[in-house]
């Protein structure tokens, strides 16, 4: 069953009197439980595609369906609700609120969902524990008191705290060293094992090989869409 569907989606940007065609007539479907990597060179339209999937931007033409709900007809309130309940975002630069504790950062989507403070914080602590951050040891730390890898774990906890249908991650390891990159990728793999759908945007083959399906984008078009055959664990992934 499709969690995300793009149907003949295009996105044009106007810069001055020029227009940039960032996404051209893309049709793509992502099913529940998948772990998809979107790869491609810089400027190929990966981030734009992800923003469209996450309802952060509206397509110039075409349709975006989240959990079989067509987004273009929705009002702001319903869009916000879909983003809140169905989608979790992870960004390259973590995007945690400064001067705000890790627990409160993670609880943010719950507050927007209308949770009371205590239940929200309790759930946030659980999510932190799930991503390997001890909520009692580090929960009250502010982002600037955490390492890059830890910050990204907090961001992932925030993305999954509301049990979304899909987690969209744009270059989540772009700012991390190789050790932290492996940790984060391992975390994504284990979340996927538990059933979370993951879409991961990257330009690194090494990162993409952790996914089970690779969609490669070039000039706003889907160049290839292939499953990854894992012969011996994620590291040994080979394109079929």
């Amino acid at each position, binding site marked *: 069953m499709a969690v995300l569907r793009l149907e003949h989606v295009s996105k044009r940007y106007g810069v001055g009197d020029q227009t940039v065609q960032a996404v051209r007539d893309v049709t793509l479907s992502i099913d529940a439980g998948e772990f998809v990597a979107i790869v491609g060179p810089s400027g190929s339209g990966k981030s734009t595609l992800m923003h469209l999937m996450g309802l952060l931007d509206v397509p110039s033409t075409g349709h975006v369906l989240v959990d079989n709900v067509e987004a273009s007809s929705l009002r702001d309130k319903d869009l*916000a609700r879909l983003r809140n309940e169905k989608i979790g975002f992870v960004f390259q630069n973590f995007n945690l609120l400064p001067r705000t504790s890790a627990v409160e950062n993670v609880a943010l989507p719950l507050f927007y969902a209308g949770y009371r403070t205590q239940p929200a914080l309790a759930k946030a602590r659980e999510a932190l524990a799930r991503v390997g951050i001890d909520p009692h040891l580090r929960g009250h730390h502010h982002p600037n008191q955490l390492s890059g890898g830890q910050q990204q774990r907090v961001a992932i906890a925030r993305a999954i705290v509301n049990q979304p249908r899909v987690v969209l991650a744009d270059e989540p390891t772009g700012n991390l060293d190789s050790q932290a990159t492996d940790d984060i990728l391992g975390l994504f793999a284990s979340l996927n094992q538990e059933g979370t759908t993951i879409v991961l945007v990257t330009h690194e083959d090494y990162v993409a090989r952790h996914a089970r399906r690779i969609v490669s984008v070039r000039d706003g078009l889907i160049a290839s869409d292939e499953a990854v055959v894992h012969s011996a664990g994620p590291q040994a992934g080979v394109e079929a």
Partner: protein
Amino acid sequence: MRLNRILRTAFLGLGHNPLRTALTLLGIIIGVAAVVALLGVGQAATASVTSQIQGLGTNVLVISPGQSTENGFSQGLGSSASLTDSDVKALQKDNALAAVAGDVTTRAQVVYGSVNYQTQVEGTTPDIQTIRNLSLAAGRFFNTVEANHDGYVAVIGPTAAENLFGTQSPVGKTIWIDGLAFEVVGELASEGSSGATNNDDRILIPLQTMQAHLLGGDSLTTIYASARDSQSMTQAQLQVEATLRQAHGLRFGESDDFTVTNQATLLSALSNVSHTLQVFLGGIAGISLLVGGIGIMNIMLVTVSERTREIGLRKSLGATQGSILGQFLTESAVVGLLGGCIGIVVGIVGAQGIGRFLQTSVPISPSSVWISFVVAVAVGLVFGVYPALRAARMSPMNALRYE
């Protein structure tokens, strides 16, 4: 998002840059304090003049030399000595009037022992006591016999008494006015000082003595008359005008060379002036509140553009336009609210300070406090709306990419 969260977020945002928040607050504080203090001072000024006018007594007509405007304020005060003793005599025949007293006022040196004091010396008749409703703290008023037969007697106001005699009782003492000896026979009760003029700082002596031995001539500064009752005021005033016109030989079409005023006309003239004063002061205060509001708007616009990425992030996590709007509106409303509260306190303290300086009490009306408080919060909301709307309407993707 729940209310406690919205408030927490707003305070977090304000704590982001404390100095900037404090400066924004200052704008509102000054505006609100100005409203509270200036309106208070305006009311105090009005109250002070009102009490002086009411001190005239309700049935009193005040006749002064010179022409008047419609408002009852004299334009050119008597260049010619248009009021004399004969006017008093003519008016005393009017049966619409209960009592009439002529009055001459001058400033003179008064000496008691080694004390030398300059004060207001008023020549008048015993009738003034009933007309102006004067009461005595000690002794008695000079009587008709003394008044009509060169009596060297004086009644002294409490301020003048204190300055001349200190703590001693003035009654029975002899004072020298312009080289003439007067016996003090009574001390007036305090009428209380109001603003710049002090009715307690004066010495009353018989009119006749004053004219014959101190000043010469028979011209008067003022004639006080009292109507039989407050209903007959208008009639009494018309009567006075007719009598004086006749006494002065004014023909039809010639304008009066005197002015008759009473408490009612003075009060209505005053209420015009005090209304203008209140509007003027309120206007100044309002402008400073407006400037404070523009300060809020300015800061909120800066804040919104500084925190564009935060807005994008919050939207990606499920914030609606409404909750972003609420977040920034709450921030500016909190500035208005906090500024309003501090401003009211500063305004009250400031008004008391001004009151101490002017030696009057400055009343703080609850309505001016309420109004300025509500206006401060409203200013915060109104001037916060535009920045908040800009934040709320941002596309999440553009906001996230903003640098």
